[in-house]
């Protein structure tokens, strides 16, 4: 209660009471009075003192009384205890405290339970848990699964109805167009329109026999047909799954908007850093509720736009997977079916094994990408052998600038018998390219057609030029360099103009090369800036020392080019400190410094840049 909260032992601070000016009642002491004070008699003096002291006491007592009264009022006033505001506030606070206590108790109990559960789970998993190598992915291919179970049928009379009903559902699900698989059905029932009426009849008869017709649904096709029977629409339950996947796409798009816009806006730009994007897409791909090939079956126009924007991300993801299969650098490690493909490829590196291994992937987008990659490397091999097929190639040089589409077009042009026979393959390549770069929304049946076209085209090419696929081995490339055609062009220019071994450069001065290349590309539009840039790059790269030795970057470049202008510095110190800073790439620091120079150097700021560099180096050395 409020009365209890005030302490019993009240002590009043005198300082808290306002002081009164003594001049108010005594008055100022004047020099004349001072003199009179000494001159006057004692009686006078006493009277004066008494008067003054009385006055003082009265005033003080009045003051005391007023202060005490106010305090008494404060303590004893009935309004203080029963004031509604205070009561409300106190009640609220007590209620809050009580609820808090309850919640805390609950939480402690849940935490204890949670920890207990987690411990149990951990113990359980430690006993029975599977490591990544033991996960129950099946190793069996489609053709390797053999029947092992015996079987018999329930009622021979009803089973015919059931079978016919399943065939009807297949027919309804596959749509009005005719398939080769449906020939048997067409002998019995005729066309698509009659399938609906027969299915309705069969459904009624099955329900009479106490058989639930929905139990007969066993494949996706039959499911579609069943949905047409039940709802009149095959796409109803798909919609929720597809909406959820497209929401996930939207979130991923908003997260990586900058990277995705860079990927498809201008081809001349330096390719962006896509590791976080690829990782996110891999997560998204794991938790998909429907397969990617089936997504565009039911899409509104807005959802289509979202898919079109998201397609380059999928492109990057699939390319990364292909890199992993072949043995290049990759951002996301493989698991399950693709790991088996990878192991098969590692055993014998050739295009034939990749083609065989790709058959396990069914008719999926992943398989299309793999086949495209196989076709591209085959076309490169063909052009490498016979240079007259392509105008720009020379003997002995690697074929960087050739893509699958352009290479195949030139081959078809220059060899007359292949012009018509490879038309389907060209169409397949354009299909894949439009998915990757132009936001083409496919139909799920397209994959079947174009995968066939790819395989036929590869067969024709290998037979015509007598190149056995077992002999062609895939090239191992580093991720950020040889990926895109414009980068390959830049490589060629660097090779021609400066005479660099790019393989060596990638090994020893990779950061330097990347940064210089990026600037080389970004200044390409300004011819003047380009000239300055080329001179700079020429200066730094012309000297072949730093390419040949591992520590050459620190010595060769810093000694010869940069440090002549700076104050004298011990080079050994730089070398040691650079090694200590990051042991993994010993040339990292010096390469970083040089790259900074190249990045920021323009003709005007060049001297300032030197000063900054010298400061940095001095700081590192501790001067």
């Amino acid at each position: 209660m409020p009365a209890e909260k005030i302490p019993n032992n009240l002590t009043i601070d005198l300082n808290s009471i306002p002081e009164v000016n003594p001049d108010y009642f005594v008055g100022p002491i004047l020099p004349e009075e001072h003199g009179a004070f000494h001159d006057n008699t004692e009686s006078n003096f006493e009277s004066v003192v008494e008067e003054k002291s009385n006055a003082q006491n009265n005033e003080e007592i009045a003051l005391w009384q007023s202060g005490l009264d106010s305090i008494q009022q404060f303590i004893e006033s009935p309004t203080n205890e029963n004031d509604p505001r205070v009561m409300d506030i106190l009640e609220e606070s007590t209620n809050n405290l009580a609820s808090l206590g309850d919640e805390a108790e609950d939480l402690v109990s849940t935490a204890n339970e949670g920890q207990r559960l987690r411990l149990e789970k951990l113990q359980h998993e430690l006993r029975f848990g599977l490591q990544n190598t033991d996960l129950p992915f099946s190793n069996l291919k489609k053709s390797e699964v053999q029947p092992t179970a015996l079987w018999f049928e329930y009622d021979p009379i009803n089973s015919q109805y059931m079978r016919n009903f399943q065939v009807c559902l297949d027919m309804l699900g596959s749509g009005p167009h005719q398939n080769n698989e449906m020939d048997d059905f067409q002998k019995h029932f005729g066309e698509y329109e009659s399938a609906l009426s027969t299915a309705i009849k069969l459904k009624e008869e099955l329900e009479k026999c106490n058989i639930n017709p929905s139990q007969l649904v066993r494949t996706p096709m039959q499911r579609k047909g069943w949905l047409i029977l039940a709802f009149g629409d095959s796409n109803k339950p798909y919609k929720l799954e597809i909406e959820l996947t497209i929401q996930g796409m939207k979130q991923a798009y908003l997260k990586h908007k900058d990277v995705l816009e860079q990927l498809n806006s201008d081809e001349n730009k330096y390719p962006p850093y896509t590791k976080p994007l690829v990782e996110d897409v891999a997560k998204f791909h794991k938790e998909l509720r429907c397969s990617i090939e089936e997504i565009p079956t039911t899409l509104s126009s807005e959802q289509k736009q979202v898919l079109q924007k998201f397609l380059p991300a999928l492109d990057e993801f699939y390319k990364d997977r292909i890199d992993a299969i072949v043995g290049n650098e990759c951002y996301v490690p493989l698991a399950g079916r693709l790991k088996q493909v990878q192991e098969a490829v590692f055993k014998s590196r050739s295009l034939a094994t990749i083609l065989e291994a790709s058959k396990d992937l069914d008719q999926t987008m992943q398989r299309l990408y793999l086949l495209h990659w196989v076709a591209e490397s085959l076309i490169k091999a063909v052009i490498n052998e016979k240079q007259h097929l392509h105008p720009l190639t020379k003997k002995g040089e690697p074929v960087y600038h050739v893509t699958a589409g352009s290479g195949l077009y030139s081959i078809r042009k220059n060899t007359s018998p292949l012009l018509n026979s490879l038309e389907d393959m060209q169409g397949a390549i354009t299909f894949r390219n439009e998915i990757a770069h132009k936001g083409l929304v496919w139909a799920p049946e397209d994959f079947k057609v174009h995968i066939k076209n790819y395989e036929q085209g590869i067969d024709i090419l290998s037979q015509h030029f007598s190149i056995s696929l077992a002999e062609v081995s895939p090239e191992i490339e580093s991720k950020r360099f040889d990926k895109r055609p414009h980068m390959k062009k830049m490589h060629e220019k660097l090779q021609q103009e400066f005479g660099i071994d790019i393989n060596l450069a990638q090994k020893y001065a990779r950061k330097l090369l990347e940064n210089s290349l990026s600037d080389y590309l970004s200044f390409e539009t300004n011819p003047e800036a380009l000239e300055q840039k080329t001179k700079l790059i020429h200066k730094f790269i012309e000297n072949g020392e730093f390419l040949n030795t591992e520590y050459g970057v620190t010595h060769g470049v810093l000694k010869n080019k940069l440090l002549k202008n700076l104050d004298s510095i011990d080079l050994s110190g730089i070398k040691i400190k650079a090694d200590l800073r990051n042991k993994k790439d010993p040339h990292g620091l010096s390469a970083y410094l040089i790259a900074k120079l190249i990045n920021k150097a323009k003709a005007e700021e060049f001297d300032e840049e030197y000063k900054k560099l010298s400061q940095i180096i001095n700081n590192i050395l501790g001067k």
Partner: protein
Amino acid sequence: MSRLEQASNSVAQRTKKITRALVKARKNLLEQENLQTGGSKLYLRGTFISFEEASQRLQIRIEGDHYYYPLSDYYGSWIPRPNSPVIITRMATNNKEIAIQGFDRQGLSIPYSEILALEVRSVDDRNGVIAAYSDEIGFFQINLPESIIEKGAIVPGKMQLFRRVTAIPKTFLIPHHCNNTSRNPLDIYRMTR
């Protein structure tokens, strides 16, 4: 009065802060319970896609890729419908065998399959047909796939255990191997009933 108000207000604010912290902590607790710890898993999650009668294979999508399993790995009493969830584990006793558990679309698990004891009376290799007898069904004819005839797994005049999986209109009988060799399989059969 004003001091009291201030004090009470400060108390109220602190309680608000603490409640927020409590809500956060509760969320974190619930999320952490669902996390899978470490690198070890107990099972894989997948979605069932289709079942082919001729080759007796199940097609299942796991983490975006398609996989094929034989019917002998399936332990439910009937085959799930397409696009329903499925869990794939390894048997705890024998860490090599794969076991698949199916679910309804509502999330209820499909019950474990019944075990039948059959006595084979006669075998026709030409037609691929057996005459068999069981207590539940009586005499009936069973069709054999060719792979089993070649193996010679079925012996006439001997009782054997099977798991029954229904895929209307057919019912499949999967040979069921017991680990306890010391016991007579028929005893186990009676215990299961």
